[in-house]
């Protein structure tokens, strides 16, 4: 049987209180908080986090394909999936594709993955969904949205939740859109969207699935489905004949926000984290139609539940943004003063030449003396053996902070820039920058781990590389 064989998720460490949004604009902006990607994060980096979480403790070579679903990709022209593939250190001889343009991208990817595994063209296909949609300041979306990512591995061995059936509905209904060059999404009147849009289209697909599978909705253990906000989510529960108290997975609007393409998969993962063998889970997405799936949880679930950061651990590990201004700063909502330091250029040949380091964070281990070193050298720093190295993945290593400094004047959105000399567990030293840190807690000897981030916006490119952060959770 084809189904989910693993899951992983990611929630950025920063949260913004909706009180602070309301205070900024002199209005009520709801209760709770929303997640906010750090200045060095985008949907691609969050996708890498989720992908790596999904493969924790597993052989990354088993993945035969990767779909990346988002409506907020870092590039309009340039695939993100291929970069996620490289950063997650997946094989090169796999198919990768971005599923962009629709909030339903995650379930489109799920369908494609399921079909590939069924057809035998792939054994294991990964779906990564990630969104960080920029909402117009003082818009309703600003308080509603959140940033986050989810990853699911689809295969037919060691399945943790089998696909029992699905129903797919395509609709030309227009509710929300963004043209190339638009900074913010545009939206039609909310009553039209609600009454003619998701309140009709999503239940239509779900009810069709009930009929197709001859399913009594009362038998569903948990339902994980998209809605733009909490009130609509409640209304949808009723429309789909589900008991909101017992049958509906909490949609996390109060602690996370609407993470767009990633929201339904994140709710699904939250459900899987608490699921027991035999549970049935309804999964439904919305956007340009709707997709509905029914999963049945197997006894393999426990193995994965024990070994993922997933939703809950990420939600529990957080830092509050001190005010709205900090949000404006890290999401770059304003045009800033121009820097006086001439900016450094990126060089694509350098990035390409150093791709094992830049994307995959590979160091090298001397075959003669065994010492790990990075970046690459031709001649060993310890024994001078020439061209006698084997690659070593550093991205999954932890390390100890040997020394640090906090530069208040570096070209960096979040200051100070915490320069970090990290001695890696297992050998080697990584000279790096620390992100997602509370500067009052940075100290020599603290443990850190690697995280894939944006470095500098040189040459109008997103320059990605690895940083370190305090061990997240």
């Amino acid at each position: 049987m084809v189904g989910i064989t693993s899951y992983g998720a990611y929630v950025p460490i920063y949260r913004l209180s909706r009180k602070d949004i309301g205070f900024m604009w002199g209005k009520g902006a709801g209760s709770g908080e929303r997640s906010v990607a750090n200045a060095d994060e985008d949907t691609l980096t969050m996708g890498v986090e989720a992908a790596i979480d999904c493969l924790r403790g597993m052989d990354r070579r088993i993945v035969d394909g990767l779909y990346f679903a988002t409506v907020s990709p870092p590039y309009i022209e340039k695939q993100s999936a291929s970069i996620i593939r490289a950063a997650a250190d997946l094989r090169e001889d796999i198919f990768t594709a971005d599923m962009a343009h629709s909030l339903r991208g995650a379930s489109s990817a799920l369908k494609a993955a399921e079909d590939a595994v069924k057809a035998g063209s792939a054994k294991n296909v990964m779906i990564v969904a990630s969104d960080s949609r920029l909402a117009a300041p003082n818009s309703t979306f600003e308080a509603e949205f959140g940033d986050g990512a989810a990853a699911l591995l689809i295969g037919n061995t060691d399945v943790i939740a089998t696909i029992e059936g699905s129903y797919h509905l395509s609709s030309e209904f227009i509710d929300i859109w963004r043209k190339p060059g638009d900074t913010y999404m545009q939206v039609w009147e909310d009553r039209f969207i609600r009454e003619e849009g998701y309140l009709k289209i999503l239940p239509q697909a779900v009810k069709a699935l009930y009929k197709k599978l001859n399913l009594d909705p009362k038998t569903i253990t948990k339902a994980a489905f998209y809605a733009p906000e909490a009130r609509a989510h409640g209304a949808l529960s009723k429309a789909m004949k589900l008991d909101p108290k017992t049958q509906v997975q909490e949609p996390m609007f109060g602690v996370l926000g609407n993470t767009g393409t990633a929201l339904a998969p994140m709710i699904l993962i939250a459900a899987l984290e608490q699921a027991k063998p035999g549970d049935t889970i309804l999964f439904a997405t919305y956007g340009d139609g709707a997709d509905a799936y029914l999963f049945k949880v197997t006894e393999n679930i426990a193995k994965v539940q024990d070994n993922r950061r997933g939703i809950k651990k990420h939600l529990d590990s957080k830092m509050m943004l001190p005010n709205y201004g900090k949000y404006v700063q890290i999401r770059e909502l304003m045009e800033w003063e121009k820097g006086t330091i001439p900016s450094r250029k990126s060089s694509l040949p350098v990035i390409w030449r150093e791709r094992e380091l830049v994307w995959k964070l590979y160091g090298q281990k001397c075959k003669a003396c065994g010492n790990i070193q990075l970046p690459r050298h031709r001649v060993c720093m310890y024994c001078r053996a020439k061209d006698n190295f084997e690659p070593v993945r550093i991205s999954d290593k932890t390390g100890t902070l040997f020394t640090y400094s906090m530069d208040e004047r570096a070209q960096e959105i979040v200051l100070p820039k915490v320069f970090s000399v990290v001695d890696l567990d297992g050998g080697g030293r990584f000279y790096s920058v620390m992100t997602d840190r509370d500067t009052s807690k940075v100290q020599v000897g603290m443990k850190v781990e690697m995280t894939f981030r944006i470095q500098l916006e040189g040459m109008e490119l997103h320059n990605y590389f690895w940083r370190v952060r305090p061990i997240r959770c």
Partner: protein
Amino acid sequence: MESIKDKVAIVGMGCTPFGEHYSKDSVDLIVDACYEAFEDAGVTQKDIQAAWLGYVNSDIAMTGIILAGALQLEYIPVTHVENACGTGAEAVRGAAMALMAKAYDLVIAVGFEKMKDAGFGGIPQAFPGKWHPVYGAAPEVGGGVGRYALAATKYFSTYGLTPQEGKTMLAKVSVKAHRNGARNPKAALRNVITVEQVLNAPMIAWPLGLFDCCGINDGASAAIMCRTEDAKHFRPKGDYITIKASGIACGPGWGKERPDYDFVHWEETERCAKQVYAMAGIKDPRKELQVIEVHDCFSIAEVIAVESLGLVPKGQSKKDIDAGAWEQEGEMPVNISGGLKSFGHPAGASGGREIYEFYKQFQHKVEEPSRQLKRDIKLGLAHNQGGHPGNFVCGITIVGEPPAGK
């Protein structure tokens, strides 16, 4: 291998005031320093047979031609050298080697840097056009402060100093620099400061604050050199100095990548010191050196340099500093000129400027009489290092009293 010791003499020197010379360009600075040196040696540019010119930033000049144009040198070789902050030492070294080889009889070594046309207070990027994540010295990925601050953090933690104790120790180094620089007419910062001011100054890169950092300035220095046996033609004995040793040590960069580097010593300085102490025959540098000019681009740089030069046991600078041992009247004066801290650091000019301090002290011609060291001056050390902790180039020149009979 033949030692350079006492084979080459410096018979004339010039040094501009260091500072923000908004009304002077590179040529003005070069002319000011070189003409002071010419007049000092009693020569003209027509007597010069070859020149070595040090500057770091390729945006400010092209090749050695700028020197020929500035001084109207007629078709003699001018060699442009660059070795980061060791550039000044490298220019003197190149000139000395040529004299030693008897390829020329009278040469000039010039260092300059015009930094204040750039529009920002840092070191311009070293490799425009090349992007490399994290590694590299461009300000965007962390300037010198952030890098040296790594050593300060580690120094405190290694030797059990609380941040307050460590920062106070470093503050005393900066206070001393300002006290010395305040009396030096060629220094850029000529104000006396207090420990409290240093501790309360804005943070630049924790744990280093504003007064822990030297500035970036414009300046030039020049030295006219010949073989020691010819020195008497230019000035009387007792009025010229000889080169006792000249060393450069380029590190292989282990510190950034090998976990066995401790960030509390400068390996390149230790290795370079070994080279020059052997050449000069120095056994106990603390006792033998009277003028010690070290690279104090940051307060922590001076502390660790002094230790790595073998002048103080490792980790024990605080005792010395608290006792005032590095003050002008102390047991072992360090950076009596005011150092990079009060001069700023026009990279190519600093090495020559440090030798200039010894030259004037030795001749008892220090412009401001209160700065004159009241001791027998025989040997001085000029130390510079460029790059960052873990990956330096170090240049040291040892100069001193000519040997008896020469």
